[in-house]
């Protein structure tokens, strides 16, 4: 069944004035995107890729330099007040609200910004507080909450008006594993009626893989690939992905990229153990001997290595040549 388009951008471009002498910064460059009603769409990319710029334009906080952006068929720069009635925005790491008010009081306040009736607001607050595990903190002042619980409150705020479209900008940033899981469960249950849409930006590939119906990989303001996580991973299935643990840390990571047949590499270092975990996407396995020699020439020793199933991170490495870390 063909669904309605909920979010759409056409040749969307946003340029920011740079610092003197440095030139302008192109945050979004001719982005075309169509997200269907009922979809959780993930936008993956490193810092500065243009994810937040995209969300800010769609959430009516920023005007595009050129191109068009639509939410539920409404052009956002011309219909900001109509769009605001059907959307909400959660920016991860932000904790909007008033420290002197309790969780319940803050949520009641936010509900009033959307004109909810007393009964409607109370029911909504009760549901959200339960879903996000805030029951025991309902009368606690926001200033007394831990960072994770403040973030849960922020998420509850984002759903207070039961919006048709929610923009989640790095929603699990700084959240512990349990809170992040609760959030994902809540979003999935909220999506069940098929009329809601979520545009999610994240650094966490596993999160996008678990939650999103489709993902768009964005880098330097351009969408490089857009499909379901399964299809994106299938596209690189012919290219082997390897995980290699080395010690000490690789000093010159770029030397690995110069090895013929290496498509991309990312590195996660562990300062405590002095080891690095390399993720490599290769053209084929014949590259391995040259690669291991290069690692040795770098003065590092291989501790562990193994082939891995392709992940969204591998898709990203394959497209950009480097990891998100």
């Amino acid at each position, binding site marked *: 069944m063909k669904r309605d388009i909920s979010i759409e951008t056409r040749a969307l471009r946003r340029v920011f*004035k740079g610092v003197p002498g440095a030139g302008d910064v192109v945050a979004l460059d001719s982005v075309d995107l169509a997200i269907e009603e009922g979809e959780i769409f993930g936008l993956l990319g490193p810092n500065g890729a243009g994810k937040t710029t995209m969300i800010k334009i769609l959430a*009516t*906080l920023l005007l595009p330099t050129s191109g068009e952006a639509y939410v539920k068929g409404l052009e956002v*720069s011309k219909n900001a007040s109509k769009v605001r009635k059907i959307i909400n925005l959660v920016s991860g790491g932000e904790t*909007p609200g008033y420290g002197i008010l309790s969780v319940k009081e803050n949520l009641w306040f936010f509900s009033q910004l959307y*004109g909810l009736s007393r009964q409607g607001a109370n029911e909504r607050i009760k549901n959200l507080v339960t879903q996000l595990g805030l029951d025991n903190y309902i009368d606690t002042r926001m200033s007394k909450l831990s960072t994770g619980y403040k973030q849960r409150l922020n998420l509850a705020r984002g759903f207070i008006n039961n919006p048709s479209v929610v923009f989640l900008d790095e929603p699990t940033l700084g959240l512990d594993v349990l809170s992040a899981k609760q959030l994902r469960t809540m979003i999935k249950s909220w999506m069940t009626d098929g009329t809601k849409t979520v545009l999610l930006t994240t650094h966490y590939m596993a999160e996008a893989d678990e939650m999103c119906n489709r993902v768009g990989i964005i880098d330097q303001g351009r969408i490089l690939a857009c499909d379901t996580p399964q299809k994106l991973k299938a596209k690189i299935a012919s290219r082997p992905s390897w995980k290699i643990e080395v010690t000490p840390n690789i000093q010159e990571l770029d030397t690995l990229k110069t090895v013929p047949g290496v498509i991309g590499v990312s590195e996660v270092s562990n300062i405590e153990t002095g080891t690095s975990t390399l993720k490599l996407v290769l053209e084929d396995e014949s590259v391995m001997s040259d690669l291991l020699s290069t690692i040795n020439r770098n003065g590092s020793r291989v501790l562990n290595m193994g082939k891995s199933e392709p992940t969204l991170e591998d898709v990203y490495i394959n497209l950009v040549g480097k990891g998100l870390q």
Partner: protein
Amino acid sequence: MTLVSPTLRDEITANMRAAKARMWVRIKGGNRELTHYIAEVVLPVLTIGAYVILYKTLGLPPSLGAAVIIGGAMIAFWTNILWNMSAQWFWEKEMGNLEMYMVAPVSRMSVLLGMAMGGAINTSLRATGIILLGVFVFQVPFQVHDLLVAGLVFLLTVISLYGLGMVFASLYMLYGREAWHTNMLLQEPVFFLSGSYFPTIYVSVIPVWLQVTATLIPMTVGLDAIRRVTIQGQGLMAVWPHILALIAFIAILIPVARMALNYMENLGKREGRLTLRWQ
């Protein structure tokens, strides 16, 4: 999907709810801390008391003491509605709340109205403290013959301050720290010109050009009218020009504020600075 257009009544209800909620935050937030009462009531009472004692010591007419009591009471509203309401926009931005307000489907004027009303209610405590000080401690002479006119002048003054405060708020929306500095720079000269501590219009010691300049501030006009009604016992016949001037201020300032808020919001969206912090 078709979106159902809300009626005008729905729009008004939603905006009134937003204003009421923001007012409630201000009242609740202000009154949860004991230090608020000290800062809001005790300290201003001491300042005003000092002026009254000074005037008494110098043997000046008791009406001057009454004038400073009224000025002190009105400064409270002036500070809260104009300066604090507009500056609050800066703090909301720093706290990350401005983004939340900008994404909400209510008018910024409703949110600011809520801040102003909450500020006015909190301030009435301070104003009451100052008036009680004047009446019972310093026994300054008040004579109110027409409460209705006094109330009308007060209301019009407060509304015009709200209009002016919103114009300032639009600057805070974009300029943050610079607007904050400008605010600090303007506060004392404006307190002086508006005649908060002593009359600045219809007094011979102040040059005429300065008196005329002072009347460009709504507070000057409102304060003079309130003093006439509450200290000199005058009525509508004496203050109708003031009332007309205050209505003119409102008629100009509210639409200007609306335009300024829209203009600054659009400029912020164009330049990408609307919710940018640490500016």
